[in-house]
């Protein structure tokens, strides 16, 4: 009798388990694409002298950000302009890119999740690219109210500031 039950198990139950598992896997999408957060990169130009005519195409940075930047010695300038911004989702296990100067690829940020850190933090593998050259690689913990600010290259007498924030 036991031998018959084993045969029955092998013939019917195991295929059911395999089929059930396969169906479950099919029914779910790729979990690596699950969005675990959203980050925003904003590119500012800071200068102490009034930028030239070329800068009139770019909006003046918001008062809140300007005040925050002025509170940092290395980023304290009289004038701030916003060059561009990009918002991208953070996937669970896929890399994604931020291009705040779209369609230009002069400044790029690649990032990939490394999991939650603490209650409201998200650890990332983050790479800063300038002119298709990787400049820096780091693993910061981003929090919604604590941006990562990078003082980057100079352009037309202004200092470039990249602000990276976790917005979700």
């Amino acid at each position: 009798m036991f031998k018959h039950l084993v045969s029955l198990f092998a013939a019917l139950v195991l295929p059911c388990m395999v089929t059930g598992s396969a169906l479950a896997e099919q029914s779910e999408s790729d979990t690596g694409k699950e969005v675990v957060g959203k980050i925003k990169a904003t590119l500012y130009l800071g200068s102490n002298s009034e930028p030239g005519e070329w800068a009139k195409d770019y909006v003046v940075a918001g008062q809140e950000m300007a005040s925050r930047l002025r509170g940092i010695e290395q980023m304290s300038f009289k004038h701030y302009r916003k060059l561009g911004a990009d918002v991208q989702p953070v996937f669970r296990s896929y890399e994604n890119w931020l291009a705040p100067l779209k369609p230009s690829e002069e400044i790029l940020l690649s990032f990939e999740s490394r999991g939650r850190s603490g209650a409201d933090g998200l650890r990332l593998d983050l790479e800063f690219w300038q002119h298709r050259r990787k400049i820096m690689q780091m693993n910061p913990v981003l929090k919604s109210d604590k941006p990562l600010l990078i003082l980057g290259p100079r352009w037309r007498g202004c200092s470039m500031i990249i602000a990276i924030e976790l917005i979700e």
Partner: protein
Amino acid sequence: MKRHDDQEPNPAELTLWMDGELTGDDLARVESWAKNNPEYLAEREAIQAMQSDIRSSIPASVEPPYADFFNQRILRAIEDKRGDVSEQKLAIGFAAIAGKFSKWLALPAAAVAMLICFYMGTQVSLAPDPMAPVVKVSAKPAIYMPDGNVRANVVSPQNNGATVIVLEGLEDIPDDFDIVGEPHHGRGTRSQMVMVSNEMIF
């Protein structure tokens, strides 16, 4: 018709004569025949001497040691044998009942097992736990600079909440290069480079 005395006895008679178990006329006839066959006489004497020696050294009957124990073992073996037979009968009875019962239970049991296994299979998933374990690591970011000419200074301004990184040694972007709205990189010889990141990070 009476047998002649010189006639050789048959093997059975000869054996009985040698063992001393022949009697009556048969004994007289064989004795008469043996007088003319002294080798059989000698052989009979040797056999009888050997039998006499055996009788003198081995008792006629020997009581087995621990006779009670021996008998008890025999009785127990007999009882065990009887018990096995009754147990076999009982087992056959149970098997018959279970066989009839299992006929009715086999299909529902198999169906229930299939449903349970199917459900378990649907629960097997590679999906990570939505409440993934929180990794507690240093809050200070580890920074790697592939270009040795560029340095990164991490600054922690007070009352700001932000993490600040100051990159030093970066190449300035040429003033004549319109970095915004330039989908392609028109400056420098590296503009034709293809960006492929194949670094392995461990």
